[in-house]
């Protein structure tokens, strides 16, 4: 009986305040969709870091004959066999280094051809113009600086290039995107809370007769407040369900099927369903608790118990 009574009160309240309820649902849904999206983006960045950091190298490019004329780093001429040996020996002595591979001019030419194929520029390139290089795999990709400071400016070395710095630009961009998403989320959630406070206030005002009688006959504070708080929580929960559905729909139609980015962008290792599913309970909990909290705060001010 009690539950039925409370439930019918919630239904009446939500319908009486339909426009405000709708606004609450939409703003909660939007903010939590952003919240979930931003959580997933963090996962995505983490996953991409793990995947790419495994594959990236630090490249030590060695001087060739044509560099010797144009590049001040190579003023002393093309790299010699002795220089190469000492560089290799030094690299192998360093503890941060995991693995070193040598790429000859011919191999570099072959890779170049593979990458740029039949472009007009590729046709004019000869193996002579390619650079020999050492590809250094680090135990920890963050320790690029150790290699750079040891080999930059050394005889026979043209430049030291860290592939991680290229990726890091991407990750920084994604990081900012994430921050922006969370900022918008915070604003939307604040709007949602203000809407809830207002909804509860209107609701409490329109039911002041009932609540007045409830007080006089000795209904407990909880019993008087529960319908209002549940009203806010139920509206929020509907928003949370919408936000969760949105994430599921995006994962299904944009990543897996439909637009199917996962097959179109095989280089990016997208987060899977497990990541999406684990966010949903969190979103639902937030969608329920935050409006309930906002409702409670509103009642403290607008409903005498």
């Amino acid at each position: 009986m009690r539950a039925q009574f409370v439930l019918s009160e919630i239904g009446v309240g939500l319908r009486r305040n339909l426009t405000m309820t709708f606004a609450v649902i939409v703003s909660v849904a939007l903010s939590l969709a952003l919240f979930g999206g931003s959580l997933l983006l963090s996962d995505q960045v983490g996953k991409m870091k793990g995947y790419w950091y495994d594959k990236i190298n630090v490249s030590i490019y060695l001087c060739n004959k044509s560099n010797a004329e144009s590049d001040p780093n190579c003023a002393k001429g093309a790299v010699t066999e002795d220089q190469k040996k000492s560089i290799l020996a030094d690299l192998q002595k360093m503890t941060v280094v995991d693995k070193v591979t040598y790429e000859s001019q011919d191999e570099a030419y072959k890779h170049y051809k593979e990458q740029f194929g039949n472009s007009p520029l590729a046709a004019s390139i000869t193996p002579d113009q390619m650079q020999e290089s050492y590809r250094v795999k680090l135990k920890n990709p963050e320790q690029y600086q150790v290699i750079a400071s040891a080999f930059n400016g050394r005889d026979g070395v043209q430049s030291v290039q860290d592939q991680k710095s290229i990726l890091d630009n991407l990750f920084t961009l994604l990081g900012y995107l994430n921050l922006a998403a969370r900022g918008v989320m915070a604003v939307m959630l604040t709007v949602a809370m203000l809407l809830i406070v207002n909804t509860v206030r209107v609701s409490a005002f329109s039911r002041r007769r009932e609540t007045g009688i409830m007080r006089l006959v000795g209904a407990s504070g909880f019993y008087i407040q529960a319908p209002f708080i549940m009203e806010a929580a139920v509206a929020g929960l509907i928003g949370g369900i919408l936000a969760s559905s949105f994430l599921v729909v995006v994962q299904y139609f944009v990543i897996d099927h439909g637009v199917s980015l996962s097959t179109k962008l095989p280089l990016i290792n997208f987060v899977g369903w497990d990541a999406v599913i684990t966010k949903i309970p969190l979103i639902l909990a937030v969608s329920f608790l935050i409006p309930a909290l906002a409702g409670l705060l509103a009642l403290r001010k607008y409903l005498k118990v």
Partner: protein
Amino acid sequence: MIRFDNVSKVYPKQTRPALRDVSLEVEKGEFVFLVGSSGSGKSTFLRLILREERCSHGQVHVLGKDLARLSNWKVPQMRRQLGTVFQDFRLLPNKTVAENVAFAQEVIGKSQGEIRKSVPQVLDLVGLGGKEDRMPGELSGGEQQRVAIARAFVNRPKLLIADEPTGNLDPQTSVGIMKLLDRINRTGTTVVMATHDQNIVDQMRKRVIELEKGRLVRDQARGVYGYQH
């Protein structure tokens, strides 16, 4: 049942106290009229009993409890032993007579079986048997006040507070309401009634407490209304 010890009440932002040093006692089973002109402190007196307000000085005991020491969450339990009736009835217009009375039981968690039993009983007591399914808007003022009394009495309170229950009713209807309150009083329920109705007070010959500018100026057993407008 009710004991006031040197009770004063000053509302915030007001210099003149609404009640000044009022001491009195109301025994179990008494019927008490509270009279006095508007602004004399009658409403404050009733609000202190209901613990809608707390007194500024002194002590208010209701049903053996010191209201100043009663924590907020225990107030509902205390109010379940009180019934309240107002001049403006305060019925829910979108609920039937029976639902209005049942509301008072539903919101304190009484079982459906108990409600089904006690609502017709109390409606018979107030003389509204057969009108369970009418809406308040379809009833006369006297009948609406009977519904309100039924709602106040359905939980069998030990104390009934009535704030000018006949204020909106014609003399003949008022007599009917007074007979009903008298009957309720005879079941052992203490009744405290604030009123401006001289005829009623003079006819009933019950204890009369008169307030004037917040002071207790008269406390008379079997009294009359006594003061002129």
